[in-house]
């Protein structure tokens, strides 16, 4: 086994690189998992501060899992599992539209349905599915972030899709 070059991350440059690599993914992970009512941004910062405080004990290759675990625990400390409802940010409405009011209404209904369906996914499904669909991450990337197998990610995402289709389109 080769020894890692460094056994700690107490250098600010190294720390900054870690921040740039992981902070957005961590933020998205927290958002998709817990929603935004617990302020994922703050928890990201919190997790990184914890990482810095313990920097002497953590090697660079352990940093990612440390961050995700810490942030996850920070969240769990605060909430007693509330149901997560993600807001659908409607694209800015065009002021004039040539769509019929009926169509607009349908669209709205569709969004609401979708929102409910997503809320009904399991946490694991939702995180993997939205990272894939919204953030455009490939299975492999998600597997790395969540420390699970690619097959596991595929299962979660496809399971989520099936669930959504069933609730929305009835198949």
């Amino acid at each position, binding site marked *: 086994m080769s020894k890692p070059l460094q056994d700690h991350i107490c250098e600010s440059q190294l720390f900054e690189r870690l921040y740039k690599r992981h902070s957005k993914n961590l933020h998205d992970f927290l958002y998709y998992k817990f929603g935004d009512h617990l302020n994922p941004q703050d928890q990201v910062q919190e997790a990184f501060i914890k990482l810095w405080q313990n920097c002497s004990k953590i090697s660079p290759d352990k940093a990612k899992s440390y961050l995700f675990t810490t942030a996850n625990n920070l969240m769990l400390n605060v909430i007693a599992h509330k149901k997560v409802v993600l807001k659908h940010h409607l694209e800015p409405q065009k002021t004039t539209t040539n769509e019929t009011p009926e169509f607009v209404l349908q669209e709205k209904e569709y*969004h609401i349905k979708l929102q409910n369906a997503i809320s009904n996914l399991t946490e694991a499904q939702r995180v993997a599915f939205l990272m894939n669909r919204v953030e455009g991450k490939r299975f492999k990337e998600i597997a790395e972030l969540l420390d699970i197998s690619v097959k596991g990610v595929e299962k979660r995402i496809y399971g989520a899709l099936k669930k959504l289709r069933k609730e929305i389109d009835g198949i």
Partner: protein
Amino acid sequence: MNREELIKKWLDNNLNTEEQKAFKLLEDYNNLTKMDASLKGFKAPKFSVEKSYRTLKPQLKPEQSSSKKWLKPLLRIAAVVAIALSVYIYTSNLDTEINTFVAEQNTIALPDNSTVELNANSSLSFNENSWADNREVKLNGEAFFKVAKGQQFDVITSSGTVTVLGTQFNVKERESYFEVTCYEGLVGVTHNNKTITLKPGQTFAFIDGKLLANEKENAVQPNWLHGESSFKSVALKHVITEIKNQYNVSINVEDIDTSRLFTGSFTHNNLDLALKSVTIPLNLSYSKSGQSILLKRE
């Protein structure tokens, strides 16, 4: 390729052109793309890495935070060590003190094998740790020293200091009574800033503010080592004091001039015999009631 495989590949953004075509032909292609488009609306709020790092940075205390990590336990260890060290230094600098009570004698071995015979009602203290550099004892009372050869050896009393190299000598320091007798070797006595050297057999006595002439002593050891106190032309009051040291009694005198000189000795084993040997030569008598003794004229 079946439908499920295609959809999974589509989810993983992994369709080649051929599969793309096949995917488009799926009956639920429209539904899937519609949902996909709509899902984009659930995008997580924008997270600006640069900006949030800038806000985080001031909260990251420089490496100090990590250096303080070891400083704290180190300080604790240092405190414990300091306390232990000061306790050790304090206790090791404490003098060893030996006391004898009335009618008790004690033999003390000093760190260099010098021995001290401590007479009754006396105290001796010395520092065991600095003994190698400083052979020094403090004496209050009477003691006979057999000093091993070596560096200077000091006996400090409130009346004066006795300095020797390797010898046998007796020091008696009681109230207004200071007597040093040399039995072997050479003894220096410093008293009132004057130093007198004693040869074997010589005695230095400073009693009641008077310096007494050196007198020849023939004994090899002081008599008190053999259970007898002897005096040569010593005022009665000092003899009485010595009786009080050797026997646990109180002595009152009635109508007697205690500055009369006494020459003789008394035993430490028999109070009556001792009192007789002091009173008869001086034409005195005594009466005894319990622990108190009254001396009076015959």
